[in-house]
């Protein structure tokens, strides 16, 4: 029997009992609909987060900090053993502290190949910012480590001395047309330890794209940050830092992994931009998987519907199967016809379910945008990707096929003589 004839036969068999087929397809439809929706929510969240975390980029940079030896267990309140040190030597790293000086950090990375620079992450605080003729606005200030690039709506990230890159909300307040701000001088103010505010002129290099990795921060380069940091920290021990940024020679993941491994052996952990994104994606991935599991339960229930439908069909068509076998149809073809029937049920259920889910999702997106657009700019509640939809369709057809295996084997094993006599 030719493949096309097999498909036609299977399809015709399904249409013989329209109501039963429709009900079985409906069960699959519900499962497929749910799976497409849950998957769509997961993808929607991921898309949103992706657009948000991508406003800072840099593939040759990693944040490095000393690992703290902590006793295992859920609480951090357990006592940590104190280790004696010789205070005298500057370059000996204090095992009791996570703070390191630039010189100490230099010595740590000194013999790790592939690291071309180390900068401390200066903690700085801003006070206000203004441009000529504007009001003063509150300034949230941060340092953009060398090698990191902020994604901008206008202009560029900081790439020269005495520059600042500002968030879009602030930029709109300073000038309605944000392009006009590029290259202009902004005056920033920051508090000194004695409480007075010092001002400094900086050139606006660009206006950043919104994203929750940067919040409402404005950023300066490490040399500007260093100057501000030195002004702001008069107290002792201010030459030690919690975190450093390393600049690496290559963005080859294998080389980066090797650097991380070597730092790990020295008691330091390094996290690249990709790593921190991955952490966020993993969290969404877990959420998405959990949601999809619920949908899978619905599909599992529906697959019993397929088994039931086909078992009944085998009984109903026992004589017909007997005749087909008597006329020379092999077991394989009988199996194929029943399997095709169950895959077709799955296919129609998946197609209709996914289609209905996409329509529902797109409508829901419109409604959502109307009500929440301001708080979640660029957020679609549901995202439907061709690849995901294809994967869902294949999965549903696969589940349907698996459900059809048992009845199809029963049909293929029927004895022709007994089947022809079946009442």
């Amino acid at each position, binding site marked *: 029997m030719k493949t096309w004839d097999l498909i036609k036969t299977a399809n015709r068999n399904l249409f013989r009992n329209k109501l039963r087929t429709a009900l079985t397809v409906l069960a699959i439809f519900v499962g497929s609909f749910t799976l497409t929706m849950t998957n769509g929510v997961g993808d929607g969240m991921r898309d949103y987060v992706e657009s948000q975390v991508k406003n800072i980029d840099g593939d040759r940079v990693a944040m490095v900090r000393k690992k703290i030896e902590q006793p295992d267990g859920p609480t951090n309140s357990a006592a940590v053993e104190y280790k004696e040190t010789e205070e005298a030597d500057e370059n000996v790293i204090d095992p009791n502290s996570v703070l390191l000086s630039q010189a100490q950090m230099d010595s740590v990375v000194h013999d790790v190949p592939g690291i071309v620079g180390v900068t401390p992450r200066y903690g700085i605080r801003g006070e206000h910012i203004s441009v000529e003729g504007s009001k003063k606005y509150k300034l949230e200030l941060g340092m953009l480590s060398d090698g990191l690039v902020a994604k901008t709506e206008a202009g560029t990230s900081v790439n020269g001395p005495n520059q600042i890159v500002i968030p879009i909300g602030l930029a709109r307040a300073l000038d309605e047309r944000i392009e006009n701000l590029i290259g202009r001088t902004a005056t920033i103010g920051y508090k000194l330890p004695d409480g007075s505010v010092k001002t400094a002129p900086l050139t606006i290099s660009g206006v950043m794209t919104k994203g929750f990795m940067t919040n409402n921060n404005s950023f300066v380069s490490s040399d500007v940050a260093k100057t501000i940091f030195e002004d702001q920290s008069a107290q002792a021990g201010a030459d030690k830092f919690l975190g450093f940024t390393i600049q690496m020679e290559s963005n080859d993941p294998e080389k980066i992994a090797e650097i991380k491994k070597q730092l790990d052996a020295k008691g330091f952990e390094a996290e690249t931009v990709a790593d921190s994104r991955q952490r966020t994606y993993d969290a969404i991935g877990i959420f998405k998987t959990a949601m999809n599991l619920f949908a899978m339960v619905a599909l599992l229930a529906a697959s019993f519907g397929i088994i039931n439908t086909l078992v009944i069909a085998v009984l109903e068509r026992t*004589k017909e199967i007997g005749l*087909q076998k008597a006329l020379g149809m092999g077991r394989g073809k009988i199996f194929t016809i029943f399997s095709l029937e169950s895959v077709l049920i799955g296919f129609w259920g998946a197609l209709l379910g996914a289609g209905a889910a996409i329509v529902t999702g797109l409508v829901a997106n419109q409604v959502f945008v109307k009500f929440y657009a301001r708080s979640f700019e660029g957020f679609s509640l549901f995202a439907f990707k061709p690849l995901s939809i294809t994967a869902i369709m294949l999965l549903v057809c696969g589940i349907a096929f698996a459900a059809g295996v048992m009845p199809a084997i029963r049909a293929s094993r029927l004895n022709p003589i007994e089947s022809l006599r079946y009442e």
Partner: protein
Amino acid sequence: MLEAQNLSKTYTSDGVDYEALKDIDLDIKRGECVAIIGKSGSGKSTLMHLLACLDAPTDGSILVDGRDTSVFSERTKNSLRNEKFGFVFQQFFLNGRDTVFENVTLPMRIRGVSNAEITTETKAALTAVGLEDKINKKAKDLSGGEKQRVCIARALVGRPEVIFADEPTGNLDTNTGSAVEDLLFALNREQGITLVVVTHDSDLAARCHRVIEMKDGRIVADRRKEATAS
């Protein structure tokens, strides 16, 4: 054409053996018209099933064209039945919701031949049974006699060498029954198709050239004669 050697068939149910056929020897020549008669339980249907390779013997062997079928694979037996044998059953086994055309095509579809050939052969077979004008009718809308003629067309469509007919007139009244008989004997006479008819209808058996009578799993009589009435 068909040969049975020391053929035995034993069914086992609930641990009890039941000998349906006991040491049968039989030789059916090409072009013969054979009736297998006997009471129910005599083993006549079992013998036909074994001859048609629908079932495997417990002992002995079936030779088709001199080749021992006991060594055949499932696949070879399937294509043997599909290509050399045609079947007509008492209960028709037509698919009522399908058209006459679709019902008749079944053996050709199983064989996997081209659509053009299927159409030509199916029309020829329906013409041979005089139902060419019912080709697009649903099978369920036909009368009993017409249904059995569709079955004969289905048995005929693959150009078989042997047609096995199991009580072909059992569900028909006398007139339509004899029309179906005429058709089967005509095929035997004009196309040389070997005919094996299982029946307990003595009138039908009387029209065959050779009558094999069975009782308790054994052949008790094997009579040959010249065809007189047909």
